[in-house]
């Protein structure tokens, strides 16, 4: 069993009477890239602000590195790098000098600045003032800042927000390297499943403040296993006949659905139904995308 880095129990936050985060039980395993996924207003930023001690939970607990955040905030933050919303900088200072300011606060040696610039591939632009940085460069500088203190945990809130595809790709590549190259556990929030799908090892889906799914990305993918959809003349009888022959069948309207199907079974089911006297009008394999599954979880009104 791998070690748990972040563990929340019944984490709740209210604004007025509105529950922004409701009884969240997060488990982020060590060395994972945890994709924290949810539509706009789901409660991702609120949760992350609680994880960083920026706001207090209304109720519930947070343990990071096995320490209670309410009691050991500074110890925890010493081992945590973060990027919440688009970071702000001193525009008139260079990228290097901006890092220098934080390095002093964190009391890390100045040579660490060169290291983090190298990691985010910003060394060539280090002596340029931040005013002239592109959005992507600013975001990478934000990640560099988060890495300054040699963290064991990186918490990034929508780090690719507003970036173009090339910028998104760069950030994603950076994040993917974190556990393997630097031994860092990453929590990254997003409202795009496709993005999480390409880098996460674990996924938590949140909507209306509630955690709807949490497991490895593999478990989520299993749910996207293909379905066999069959249209026949007498669906009720066909269902009974198939069940009698040992298949798991559900009826959806006048369609029959079978899960866990491969090509061979498809062939033989088609043949058997025909021999049993059913007319098969239509038979097809239906593969649900991860996106479909995500939408099933968050309801169709979820913005994507």
């Amino acid at each position, binding site marked *: 069993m791998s070690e748990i880095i972040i563990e929340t129990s019944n984490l709740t936050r209210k604004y007025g009477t509105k529950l922004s985060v409701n009884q969240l039980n997060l488990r982020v395993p060590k060395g994972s890239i945890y994709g924290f996924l949810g539509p706009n207003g789901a409660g991702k930023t609120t949760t992350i*602000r609680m994880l960083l001690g920026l706001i*207090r939970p209304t109720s519930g607990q947070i343990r990071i590195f096995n320490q209670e955040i309410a009691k050991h905030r*500074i110890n925890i933050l010493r081992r945590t790098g973060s990027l919440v919303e688009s*970071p702000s*900088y001193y525009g008139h200072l260079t990228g290097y000098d901006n890092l220098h300011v*934080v390095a002093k606060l*964190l009391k890390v040696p100045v040579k660490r600045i060169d290291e983090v610039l190298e990691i985010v591939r910003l060394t060539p632009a280090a002596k340029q003032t931040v005013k002239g940085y592109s959005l992507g460069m600013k975001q990478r500088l934000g990640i560099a800042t988060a890495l300054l203190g040699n963290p064991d945990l990186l918490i990034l809130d929508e780090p690719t927000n507003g970036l173009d595809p090339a910028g998104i790709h760069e950030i994603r590549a950076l994040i993917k390297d974190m556990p393997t190259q630097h031994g860092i556990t990453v929590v990254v929030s997003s409202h795009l499943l496709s993005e999480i799908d390409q880098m996460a090892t674990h996924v938590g889906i949140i909507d209306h403040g509630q955690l709807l799914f949490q497991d490895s990305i593999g478990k989520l993918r299993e749910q996207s296993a293909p379905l066999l959809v069959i249209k026949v003349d007498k669906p009720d009888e066909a269902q009974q006949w198939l069940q009698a022959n040992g298949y798991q069948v559900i009826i959806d309207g006048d369609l029959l659905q079978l899960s866990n199907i491969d090509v061979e079974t498809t062939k033989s089911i088609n043949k058997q139904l025909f021999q049993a006297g059913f007319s098969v009008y239509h038979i097809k394999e239906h593969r649900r995308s991860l996106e479909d599954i995500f939408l099933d979880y968050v309801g169709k009104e979820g913005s994507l």
Partner: protein
Amino acid sequence: MLVVLIGFVIPRNLGPSSHEWSWLVLYSAMVQIYAIVLLPMVAGILASLCCRGEHLGSGWKQLLALPVSRTVVYLSKFFYTLLFLALVQGLVLVAVLVDGFLFLHLTAPIPWQMLIKGFIAGWIATIPLAALQLWVSTWWKSFGAPFALNIILTIPALAISNSSSYAPIYPWAQPMLAMRPTKNGLLDVTPETMITITIAGITFIIGGWLHFIKRDV
């Protein structure tokens, strides 16, 4: 900058004199305007400036997600506000001297005691006001709102400063009272004023600090 400039302009018409009162007259004239209007404004502006960087973008979030204690952050903001305020006081003192020598050609000996006491007392008397301004500056995101509040609260001070019953308990009138030369009490400040300054100062410092360490970021 502004303060120093105004220091040059005000007492042009006092008439050059070598009389021993001349410094007192010059000082009183400058202090009238400076202590009641400019000093409170400067205190507010300095407090706001100390928080400006953090209000831009997500500065507070970035700063407070670092392993720093909120108390240390708040106290260092307060320390810098007071430090710059002391610097401004020093500059204005220099402005008084320059004004006296260069423009009014005062020949009477400089009343160091009175001047230095006045400026130190003025600085101390501004502490409650600075504390309150820092409180609202960390609270309100805008640069303008604390400034507006400051101006609004400065105006009554103009009227109140001549009232012996209300002036000592109104923070915006205190710098004026403290800098006004009187002959009694510690640093030329009446005990009443001193007590109010202490109580108001402690209240605003603790209030601002508690609010800052508890608040949402």
